[in-house]
């Protein structure tokens, strides 16, 4: 016969098991959502890493580029390379003669084809006068057809590609002149309105520059403020007021910081609009409270006996803090910083006010050039009518996530480093 104690014990064990199951299922649910997110993004976006290209035999006609044979680069770079591409297409399909059909034929190629040719000729002027086979990007709709995003079964009038164009595409593909290749453009180009020419590099550089400014400003200022408030400041009404204000600032919606940035940095100081410098300044205002709060918590968790022992052996308060307390608090401060930086990386709202939600083709070279950032690029692409931007949006999200992972991983490595050396 079971005693009442056994019964109670059993009940307690059962409650214990249930509790574990609750916890496990909570973890499982969050993992499920995370994997759903990843599957949907990767499933939609992985095709963007390939791009359909067409192999064209182009006769680089000296008559058309440089009739006098001067070899002048300025003349060459303004020459009509589009005409050479068109000539090559006509030669590949000599049966196409009607004007309308020819236009439809040229439309199979991206408008970037002539720039590809121009770059090659400018890099190798000795190729003028010869016939070359070069891979040029196909139009976005051809790319979508090859990737199955446009179906051949829909009615001709509802398709961006007409029946004739499909015949030409099939002809090219049977001659092995139409291939999906790795999409280097996506990783090296700036923004474009043609999905096949658009790249993430400009936005990525913009994000790096902006975050660089943010880190440079918010980390030292944040750590200094946390140190002073936690270790040196007297406890009175003023420091209480400052503390309440910092906590409030951490909860202010980010758009407010954008308005502040517009009023102060652009209108008052006259910094250029759309520059990573202003973006970084605004985002550091936003991350500062996070870093200060995390920094104070980390400093508080260092046992006071360490500080007192240092004082006891004759260190000055500053030496005690700098040599002993700060290094021990560093891992915690780093965690706070990385949380703040991750939030800054994903922010778009404050950047709208300071002009970083913009179409910028050139890759920014310094913190004063116009630039945009990764989340803004994702937002702009998601809003574009062309079908090809759909997969690029997901691919850009992947790049953003990868950037975040790299950032977090380096923080973990740094933290480990500090933990070992204390």
């Amino acid at each position, binding site marked *: 016969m079971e005693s009442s104690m056994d019964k109670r014990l059993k009940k307690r064990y059962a409650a214990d098991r249930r509790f574990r199951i609750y916890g496990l299922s909570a973890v499982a649910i969050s993992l499920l959502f995370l994997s759903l997110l990843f599957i949907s993004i990767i499933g939609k976006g992985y095709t963007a890493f390939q791009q359909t290209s067409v192999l064209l035999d182009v006769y680089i006609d000296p008559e058309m580029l440089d009739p006098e044979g001067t070899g002048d680069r300025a003349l060459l770079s303004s020459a009509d390379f589009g005409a050479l591409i068109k000539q090559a297409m006509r030669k590949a399909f000599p049966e196409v003669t009607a004007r309308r059909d020819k236009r439809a034929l040229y439309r199979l190629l991206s408008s970037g084809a002539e720039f590809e040719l121009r770059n090659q000729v400018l890099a190798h002027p000795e190729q003028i006068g010869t016939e070359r086979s070069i891979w040029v990007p196909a139009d976005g709709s051809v790319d979508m057809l090859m990737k199955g995003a446009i179906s051949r079964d829909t009615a001709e*009038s509802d398709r961006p590609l007409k029946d004739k164009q499909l015949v030409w595409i099939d002809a090219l593909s049977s001659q092995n002149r139409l291939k999906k290749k790795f999409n280097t453009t996506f990783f090296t180009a700036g923004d474009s309105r043609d999905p096949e020419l658009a790249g993430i590099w400009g936005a990525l550089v913009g994000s790096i520059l902006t975050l660089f400014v943010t880190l440079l*400003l918010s980390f030292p200022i944040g750590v200094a403020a946390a140190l002073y408030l936690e270790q040196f400041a007297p406890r009175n009404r003023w420091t209480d007021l400052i503390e309440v204000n910092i906590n409030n600032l951490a909860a202010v919606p980010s758009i407010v910081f954008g308005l502040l940035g517009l009023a102060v940095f652009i209108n008052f100081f006259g910094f250029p609009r759309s520059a990573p410098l202003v973006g970084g300044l605004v985002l550091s205002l936003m991350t500062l409270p996070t870093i200060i709060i995390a920094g104070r918590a980390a400093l508080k968790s260092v046992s006071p006996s360490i500080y007192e022992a240092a004082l006891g052996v004759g260190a000055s308060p500053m030496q005690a803090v700098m040599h002993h307390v700060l290094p021990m608090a560093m891992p915690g401060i780093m965690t706070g910083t990385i949380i703040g930086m991750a939030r800054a990386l994903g922010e778009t709202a404050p950047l709208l006010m300071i002009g970083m939600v913009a179409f910028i083709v050139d890759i920014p070279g310094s913190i004063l050039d116009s630039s945009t950032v990764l989340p803004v690029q994702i937002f702009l692409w998601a809003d574009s009518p062309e079908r090809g931007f759909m997969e690029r949006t997901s691919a850009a999200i992947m790049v953003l996530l990868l950037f975040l992972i790299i950032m977090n991983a380096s923080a973990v490595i740094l933290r480990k480093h500090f933990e070992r050396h204390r």
Partner: protein
Amino acid sequence: MKIKKLVVLALATSSLAMGFTPAQAARDHISIVGSSTVYPFATVVVERFGKTTAFKTPKVESTGSGGGLKLFCAGVGIEHPDITNASRRIKKSEVEKCHKNGVDEIVEVKIGYDGIAIANSKKATKFSLELRDLFLALAKNVPDPKGGERLVENPYKTWKEVNSKLPNQKIEVLGPPPTSGTRDAFVELALEGGCKTFKWIKAMKKKDKKAYKRLCHTVREDGAYIEAGENDNLIVQKLQANPNALGVFGFSFLDQNLDKVQGSSIKGVNPLFESIADGSYPISRPLYFYVKKAHINVIPGMKAYLKEFTSEKAWGDEGYLSDRGLIPMPKAERNQFSDDVKHLKKLDM
């Protein structure tokens, strides 16, 4: 020790960055702001311009028509934008504000038309709508269905109740929020257009313009009209998922998604490139951009950009902008505007 040095170094660098005031002496690129509807067209021109000329690629910000004009009218000087895009004409109050800030000479350029489509999923039956149907289905207050010159809160729940020729289907329309220029144009052209078909309401316009506007421009808020955000791609996706709903968005999105959605005919006219171009499709609006004359000889490339935008290869019948869904103006109107641009004709209102 190492940390101390690091902190000192970081502090020094950041103070250097703070103290460094960038010289605003020159700007070598054109700065463009304004409407998100014109953005897809302006960016195409900008990209071509940057690739084919020696000038730097201009910067285009998507701020909305109102926001763009506000920035544009803030003053003359390189810290202010040179050009603003707008999906509606500049208002008199905005011209006055410009004037107050020293922006006296503005050149107006109309670039073409944009149609607004009312579409549903291809899986559902196609709608043929009259403007009056749209008004009765979507306005907050409508004339009493029992007759008389009385207004009641919109009682219609299905399209069949609105017009017996329409399918017996719940009224559910996904459209842009009030901040959007597309919404302004939709309300002005479609709802007001339907509103005017009632004679006594039209008569009201003369007597009490405010009440007339309130009646014709207010969209119902009981859930039949769903504000779906500024993202037109999202509306297209939602229509696919819900064949019973209609969506309101720009023509270029219909054009790119013809395999997924179909545009309803309005007053018997289908939303096609041709019908918007000849003006027979009733819900279309002109698009503009405005140029600050004082900047033309200051910022490099301004004249060349204007020339590129107003060239036949850009905004012509077969130009590259028409490939993107911009509906070109008739030839005579194009000539007139490109002539105005050549002579930098000042806007007067």
